[in-house]
């Protein structure tokens, strides 16, 4: 555990060195969202509700997505893929800690850092421009729990996909594909209630919605207690499935992994 905590601290220090780059990377995520908010602002002219959302509710949803999306979106971990392809993984396998636990420490530190920067930007925006967007939420604890579970699912499935590098030389196309599909199916573009029923029921079967949109909706106080309990249970199931899938891929991948000269 000491090794994981040290990794966490080191990554925090490392990201603090490239502050400008971190801020610019954050703005890359913020800009599309700001345009989306302007679009919805225009859409609400002369309307009170769209798909059951009022303007403050929809803005709260998108701001929450903005805060959470970099942590909770399932994506390829390029470091892992590169370690496998370059043979650098051998050096990690010889060290007295588990590689996946090490990756989780790095993921936690990067996520923590991102959350910190995001909140530093979002809180003033909310206080100055949208003071009516957020109010007291009695489901805050459940919301934070769903964020934690969503992060674990995103990590486990992202790692499993990154481990495809054991068998494939180039997984950039998979990464681009995920970058296109995941924001749509995880509710980053539109809340689930906007989608037609048949598409909504399909999306509810997949893990993506439970990683991002579900925690965002809980934190925005849009779900009933029954819906939250049901969602949390499904998140736990996805965590278990993610653990099994990652364990299987990792153990089989290690068997086919070869490197030389390291």
């Amino acid at each position, binding site marked *: 555990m000491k090794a994981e905590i040290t990794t966490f601290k080191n990554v925090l220090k490392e990201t603090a060195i490239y502050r400008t780059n971190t801020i610019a*990377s954050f703005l*890359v995520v913020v800009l*599309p969202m700001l345009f989306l908010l302007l*679009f919805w602002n*225009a859409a609400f*002219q002369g309307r009170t509700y769209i798909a059951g959302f009022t303007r403050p509710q929809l803005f709260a949803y998108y701001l929450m997505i903005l805060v959470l999306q970099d942590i909770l979106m399932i994506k390829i971990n390029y470091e892992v893929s590169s370690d496998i392809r370059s043979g650098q993984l051998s050096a990690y396998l010889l060290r007295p800690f588990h590689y996946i636990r090490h990756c989780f420490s790095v993921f936690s530190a990067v996520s923590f850092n991102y959350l910190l920067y995001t909140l530093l930007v979002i809180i003033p925006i909310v206080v100055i421009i949208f003071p009516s967007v957020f109010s007291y939420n009695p489901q805050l604890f459940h919301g934070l729990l769903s964020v934690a579970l969503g992060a674990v699912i995103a990590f486990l499935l992202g790692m499993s996909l990154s481990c495809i590098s054991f068998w494939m030389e180039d997984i950039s196309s998979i990464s681009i594909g995920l970058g296109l599909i995941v924001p749509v199916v995880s509710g980053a573009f*539109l809340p689930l209630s906007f989608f037609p029923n048949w598409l909504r029921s399909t999306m509810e079967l997949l893990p993506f919605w439970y990683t991002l949109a579900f925690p965002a909706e809980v934190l925005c106080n849009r779900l009933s207690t029954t819906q939250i309990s049901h969602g949390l249970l499904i998140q736990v199931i996805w965590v278990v499935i993610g653990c099994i899938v990652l364990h299987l891929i990792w153990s089989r991948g290690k068997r086919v992994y070869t490197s030389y000269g390291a």
Partner: protein
Amino acid sequence: MSMSRTHMQLIRMAIASRLEHRENIFFQGVLQILNFAFLILFIEIVFSRISTISGWNKEQMQFLGSIAQIISILYSTFLAGGVSYLQEEVRKGTFDFILLKPLDSQLFVSISRFNLVPLMSITGPLLWILYLIVQKEVPIIPERIPFALLLILCGVLIRYSFGLGIAILSFVFTKVSALQSLQTSLFNQSHYPSSIFSGWIKIFLVYVVPVALLANAPTASLTGWFYSFQDAVILLLYTTIAVISCRYLYCMLVAKYTSASS
């Protein structure tokens, strides 16, 4: 070998090198068509709930989205590769070899990295425009087609000027990749109607970074919706200034360029 033959040879080589990975080209082409399909899906879902946004209906929004996509594809096909190539060569310190060639170095880097992958996906927005014209009876003004094409070219050149302008900053600064992603992210928002912007945001998006004009001006010119001759003139003037400034900045910074090997 004459200069024009040398340039043609360079273009042929760039295309041939890209064609080496045909499966990857096919897969990436499919992904880009998917990207456009998601934009159309987004508009379909939003407009299933509301009829207009700032005076724009579904067909108009889809037409605008298609024009924005065409500009983006043309830039990605012909010029974006050269922009990232320049950045990479400066970072590695191998830009010297380009300067030693008996060709204009800006022209060389700009045309030597053709990427045919995005060009394949241009069929998506082109077919959709055709569908809107034939099936949805969206009116276009035939005599304005050449002018609209000129404005589309302006959009591509503005994207190139910004891209190259930031890439050549790598002569001075170590890390400009995040800034490059930032400008890409900003210009990727050109599919929004300009009428959703107001106040200082509109001034910024017309005169400083003309995101609000890039696709809106050609669309307005071609269809007559929200047509403003003033906007078209601004886009033409902006393009002229941007291309000249970019060339001037390039010559100025190349003169100051030093690398570890020089």
